[in-house]
C-alpha cells in the first residue's frame, strides 16, 4: 500500500520536471570528442598517411570487420595499406582498434549517424575512411620514433637515437 502511494507520488512529481526527451535530429545531442562513433584514418603532421598496415587493429577487432593489405611506397619506403576496408555493418564501435593502433592512425569520432538502406553501402574503403588531418593527436608522427628509415629520415635521426655506429672502429 505504502509502496503504491509512493509510486503515484513520484509519477506526479515528474509532471513538473524538465522534459528529458531530445528532439533528435532537430536537436543534436552532444557527443564528447572521445565518443566512439564512425571510424576514420588520420594523417600525420606532414600530411602523410599514418597507417603503416601493421594489422593490429584487424587482429584486435572482436568482430573481424577490418581487412587490409600492406604495401610499400617505392619512393620513400613507407609502409601503407594497399587497401583498407571496414565493414561497418559488422562494427560494434568498441574502440579496440583505436586502442591497438600504435600510430594513432585509426580513431573513432563522435559521428554516430551510420544508417543506410543497403548493407553494401556500409562497407568503407580507404578513400572513405582517410581524412585530411591528424584527428585527436595533432603532433604524433610514428616514423619520427621508429628505427626503420624512410626517405628523408636516416638512421640515427629518429627520436632518442644515436648516430649510426661504425663497426669498423677500433676505439676501445
Amino acid at each position, binding site marked *: 500500500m505504502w509502496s503504491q502511494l509512493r509510486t503515484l507520488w513520484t509519477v506526479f512529481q515528474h509532471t513538473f520536471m524538465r522534459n528529458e526527451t531530445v528532439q533528435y535530429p532537430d536537436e543534436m545531442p552532444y557527443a564528447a570528442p572521445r565518443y566512439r562513433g564512425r571510424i576514420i584514418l588520420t594523417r600525420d603532421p606532414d600530411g602523410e598517411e599514418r597507417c*603503416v*598496415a*601493421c*594489422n*593490429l587493429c*584487424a*587482429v584486435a*577487432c572482436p*568482430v*573481424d*570487420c*577490418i*581487412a*587490409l*593489405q*600492406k*604495401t*610499400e611506397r617505392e619512393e620513400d619506403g613507407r*609502409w601503407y595499406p594497399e*587497401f583498407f*576496408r*571496414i*565493414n561497418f*555493418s*559488422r562494427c560494434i564501435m568498441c574502440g579496440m582498434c583505436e586502442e591497438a593502433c*600504435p*600510430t594513432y592512425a585509426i580513431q573513432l569520432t563522435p559521428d554516430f549517424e551510420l544508417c543506410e538502406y543497403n*548493407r*553494401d553501402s*556500409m*562497407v568503407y*574503403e580507404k578513400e572513405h575512411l582517410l581524412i585530411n588531418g591528424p584527428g585527436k593527436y595533432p603532433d604524433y608522427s*610514428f616514423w619520427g*620514433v*621508429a*628505427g*626503420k628509415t624512410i626517405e628523408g629520415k636516416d*638512421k*640515427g635521426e*629518429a627520436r*632518442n*637515437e*644515436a*648516430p*649510426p*655506429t*661504425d*663497426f*669498423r*672502429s*677500433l676505439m*676501445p
Partner: protein
Amino acid sequence: MATIFVDGERYEAKAGQNVLEAVLSQHLDLPYFCWHPAMGSVGACRQCAIVEYADENDERGRLAMACITSVRDGMRISIEAPYAAEFRTSVIEWLMENHPHDCPVCEEGGECHLQDMTVMTGHSQRRYRGTKRTWRNQDLGPFIGHEMNRCITCYRCVRFYRDYAGGTDLDAMGSRGRMYFGRVGDGKLENEFSGNLVEVCPTGVFTDRPFSSQYTRKWDLQSAPSVCPGCAVGCNIFPSERYGDLKRVHNRYHGEINGYFLCDRGRFGSHFVNDPARIRNAGTRARDDVFEARGVDAAMDALGKMLRDRKVIGIGSPRASVESNFALKSLVGRDSFCNGLADGEADLIALALDVHGRGGARIPTLSDVETADAVLVLGEDVLNTAPRVALSMRQAARGRALEMGSEAAIPGWQDAGIRGHAQGRLSPVFLATTLPTRIDDIATATFHATPADIARTGYAVAHRLDGDFAEGDAADEFVERVAAALGEAKRPLVVTGTGSAEPGVIEAAANIAWALRARGADPALLIAPHEANSVGAAMLDAGLSLDGALEAVRSGEADTLVVMENDLYRRAESARVDAALAAGAEVVVMDSMENATAQAANLVLPAAAYAECNGTFVNYEGRAQRFYQVFEPGGEIAPSWVWIQRAAQAAGRSDCAWSGIDDLVRACADGEPALAAIPEAAPAADYRSEADTRIPRQPHRYSGRTAMRADVNVHEPKPTVDDETPFSYSMEGQNTGRQPGSTVPYVWSPGWNSNQSVFKFQQEVGGSLSGGDPGARLIGTDGPNGADSACFRNPPAAFAGGDGVRLFPVHAIFGSDELSARSWPVASCSPPPYVVLHPEDARELGVEAGDGVRCDALSASAEVRIDAAVTRGAAACVVGLPGLPEPLPSEAVALSRDPDFPREAEIIAKG
C-alpha cells in the same frame, strides 16, 4: 635416464642433455635466445637462467644458465624462483635498451621470439633513458632483408650461416658494443641456405623479402601441411595463403628429413603459384595459336569427343602427384600410359629402385646422413640437385668433431667447446663430381672427371674394398684414400643420383655399398633423382616409355594425346616433340603454368598447383608423403585428377569415378602393388581430434573474416566444408600437436607465437613430432638383407675425346627445376644458360669466358665459362634452363662461337 625435480615436480630427463633441453622436452616454458636445438648452446644471452639447488635441504640455491648446465640424476632446479625470474627480466630489459620502436613495421611482428620472451618474462616498462644505438643496413640480395637496429647479439645467424651451413660471406664484425652481423659489403648472401636466417633470427634482423613485398601477419595466414615440390628430398613445408595469394613458405619440422632447415630453392621457389602466366581457364587453341577460353562445360564436351572410341595416349609427370598420375593411367589404360620421365632418367630411377630392392644398404633419411662417419659422393652435385642433402652432409662431416668431443667428455650440445677442441677436423668426405662444387670445402679429397670416368673410379673403389667386385680403372691415390676411409667407417654413406645421367655411377655406388656390407659395416646408399615425385611416377607400372609414346603419336597410331603437368620440350629433343605434336593427333594439356607444350595443345585445362590440391609425393627414400590443399584456387582451376574424372564422365565412361582423394588413394594402393602403403601416409578425411573437431587451417586469431570479401558481397559466404581432408577452412578446431604429424597445419602454442613453438609439437626437442614423423616408407622397410646383392660387373667405357665436344649435364639450384625457376625471387638468381669448357678446348674454339657458343642440339646460345677441372673434349652444360633440355645429346656435338651472343657486361651497359 635421469630424474630431475623442477619446482618440486618430478620429471624424467635424458642423461647428457642440458637442463634447457630437458625442461623444454617436458613442454615447460623457459625463455631462451641463443640456444638452438640444431646448433647447440653457447651461453651467450644469459636468458635461460634457473636456480639450481645443491640438495633437498638447500633453500638458497645458485643461479645457473640452463643451456650450459648438464642434467644430473636427482638434480633440483627452479624456473619460478623469484631470483631467477628477476634475473631473466633484467636480461630482457638490457637487450631491449637499444631495440627500435619498429614492431608495427617489422615483418617479424606477431611471430617474434623476442616479443614472446619479453612478454613471458614480464618486462613491460622501459626505464633506460639513454639514446638507442643505430646501424646502417646492407642490401643482402633478393631473398633476405636486413635491419640491423633490431639485433640482440645472440649470434644465432653466424652460427647457422658459418658453422652449420658453411657460408663464408656473413660474419660478426666489430668489438664491444659495436657487434655487427653482416657482409663485408652489400651483395647477395651466397649460401644456398640463407633463407633459414629468417627463421633462425629470434627477432627481425633478417626477414623474408619476397614475403615482405606482399606481407601478412602470421595470425592471418591460412596454412596446411605440404611437401616441397622443388626436388626429390621431400622436405616438409608450410605454404601460407591470404587473399588468394601464396604468401610464403616456412619450414615444417620433420624429425627425419628436413629438421629445422630448408634450402632457398624450396623457401623462395613457390611464388610461381601467383604468377600471371598461370593457366586459369579451360579453353581451346586454334591453329593460329589464339587461346580462347571456353568454360568448363564446353571444354568437357570437346574432350569427351576426343576420348570417346579413340585411341588415347596419356603422358603423366614426375611433378604431378601419385594420385593424378594413377588417375591418368586409369583413364588411358596401362599400355597407353607413360610416366612422363625422360627416357634416360626413367632408366636411372628404375635402376635405383632395383638397387634398393636388392637390399644390402640402408636408404638413409637426412638425419641418418648426419650420423654417417665417412661419405663418398659419386657423380652427383647434390647441392644443386637435392640441396638439403648437402646441408646434412655438412653435419656428417662434423661427426669427427663430435666424436673427439665425446672422447674428451664434452657434451654434444656444447658447441663452442667442441669446435675449440676439434680445431676444424672433419670426418672423411670424398667428392667425385664433374665440376668443382660449393661443398668442396668439407672434402677430404675431390676428383673431377666425366661421369663415365667417375663410375669407373667407383668400380675401382668397390674392387679395392672387396676383390670379388668388378675391377675399375687402375688404382690411383684417390681410390686408395676413399677405400681406406670407407673401409674403416662403421656407418659409411655413398651418395649418388641421376643428375649426371650416367647409370654407371649408380651401379658403382651400389657396388661400393655392397662391398662395405660384405666387410661388416652398416652402409647407407642415397640415390637422388631430381623431381618431387620422380620416384612415385617411376613406381607406377607404365606400358610406354616417353620415346614410345611420342613415336606412337607421331606415327598416327594414337588419335588423342593427353599430357598432364608436363612440358615435353624439357624431356625430349624439340624436333621429336614437334614431330609428335604436329602429327595430327588431338593434344590435350592440363598444366598449372603456360609452357611450350601447352602452347601447342588443342585443348588446355587449368591444373591446380601443389598448394591448391591434395596429393602424395614419393621422395628419394621411397617415403610417400601427403600434401594438403592450402587454399581453394579461384576460377576454373582444378586438380588434374578431377579433370580426368570429368573427362571420363564426358566420354561416357563409368569408371574413373572416385568419390574423393581418399577413394583415389585407396584405388591407387589396390591397383599398384608397389604403392600399397600410400594410404598410411596420412589419416583419412574422417579423422577428428580428441575433442571431435577438425584441424583448423587458420590460426585462432585469423582476422578480417567479415571484411575481406565485403568489397564483393557484404554477406559473408559460408566457409567451404572440406570433405577431402580432416582440415577446416576456418579457425575452428584444434591444432594441439597430438594429432598425427602429417596433419600439423602450423605451429603455435600459448605464449609461443614464433616458430620456436615447434618444441611443443615434438616428443623431445629435436626428436620426432608428438604424433610421429610424417610419411609411409614404400621401399627399404625390410631393412638391409644383403642376401641377393649381386654386384654390377660392366663398368662404362672410359671417356675418350674425339671430334667435337661431348656435353655432360650439370644442374643449377636456381633455374634447373622447372617450377621454382618461374618463381620470381628464384628467377632473379638463375644463371644464364652456360657451358663450362676446358681452357684448351676454349682456345681451340676461339672463345673466352663470357662469349657465347651454340650447336644444333641446343635451341639457345650458351655462355662460355672456363674451368680446368673439366676433362678435355668434354663440356659441362647446365640443363633445365630455357633452351637447354634435360636430355643432352649422347654424341659429341660441334660447338661454334656465336658472334651475336651478348656479353653480360654489354647487357648491363645497355641497361
